[in-house]
C-alpha cells in the first residue's frame, strides 16, 4: 500500500514535472506544476508531514500558483518565440544537467547507504501542534523576520504594479 501510493504519486510528480518543462504554453506548464505540488502533498502525508502537506496545497497550489495562472491569463501569455541568445546555456545545458544529476545521486547513495524504509504513520510529530510549538518557540525570531519580509514583499508588489495607473 505505502509503496503503491509512493509509486503512483512519484510517477504523477515526475510526469507533471517533465510536463512543466516541455509544454510550450505557460498555462499548461503552470497546471502541470500544480499537479507536481498536489502529488508532493500526498508524499508529504506519507512522510508524516500533515501540516506541511496542507500548507503545500493552501499556499503553493492555492495561492502562489493561482497568482501565476492569473498573471498568465492577464497577460494572455503565449508560447515562446524562436529567439535564443543564451549560447552558454544552449551548448552546456544538457551535459551540465547530466553531471549535476549524477553528482547528486552519487552523493545520496554514498551518504545514505542504509536509508530507513518509510512507513506511513511512523513519524507522528508533523501535525500542526508540533510544528506550531517549534515555530513559536525555537524559531520565533525567524518567523517574525519572515513576517517582515512578507510585509516588504507586499509593499514591493504594490509599488511595482501600481505604475500602471500613471
Amino acid at each position: 500500500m505505502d509503496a503503491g501510493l509512493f509509486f503512483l504519486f512519484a510517477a504523477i510528480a515526475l510526469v507533471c514535472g517533465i510536463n512543466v518543462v516541455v509544454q510550450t504554453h505557460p498555462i499548461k506548464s503552470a497546471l502541470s506544476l500544480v499537479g507536481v505540488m498536489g502529488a508532493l502533498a500526498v508524499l508529504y502525508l506519507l512522510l508524516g508531514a500533515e501540516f506541511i502537506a496542507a500548507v503545500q496545497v493552501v499556499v503553493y497550489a492555492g495561492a502562489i500558483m493561482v497568482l501565476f495562472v492569473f498573471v498568465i491569463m492577464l497577460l494572455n501569455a503565449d508560447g515562446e518565440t524562436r529567439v535564443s541568445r543564451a549560447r552558454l546555456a544552449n551548448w552546456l545545458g544538457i551535459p551540465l544537467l547530466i553531471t549535476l544529476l549524477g553528482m547528486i545521486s552519487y552523493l545520496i547513495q554514498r551518504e545514505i547507504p542504509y536509508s530507513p524504509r518509510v512507513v506511513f504513520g511512523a513519524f507522528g510529530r508533523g501535525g500542526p501542534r508540533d510544528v506550531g510549538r517549534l515555530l513559536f518557540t525555537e524559531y520565533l525570531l525567524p518567523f517574525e523576520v519572515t513576517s517582515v519580509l512578507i510585509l516588504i514583499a507586499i509593499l514591493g508588489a504594490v509599488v511595482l504594479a501600481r505604475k500602471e495607473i500613471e
Partner: protein
Amino acid sequence: MTAHVPLSWYLMLSAVLFALGVAGFLFRRSVITVFMSIELMLNAVNLSFVAFSYQWRQTDGHIFTFFVMVVAAAEAAVGLAIILTVYRNRSTLQIDEVDSMRN
C-alpha cells in the same frame, strides 16, 4: 502486502525534480516558465527537507519547508509584479530579449 520504500527514493525523486527545474531554467525562454521552474526546484528541495525530517525524526525540517514556502510566496508576489512591469515596458515575455544589462 505492505511493501515499503527506502527513504533514499524520496531523495532521488527530489533530485530528479530539481534537475527538471534546472532544465526548465536553462532551456525555457518564457519568463513565466522560468519562474515556475524555480518554484519546481524549491518544491524539490522541500521534499528532501521533509524526507530528512522523517529520517531524523525531527520536526525542524518541516519548519524549513514552511519558511521556504513563505519566502516563495513573497518571491512570487514581487516576481510577478516585476514580470508585469517588464511586460508593460517591453511587451515581451521572452527572457532572451530582456538583456539591457549586456556588457
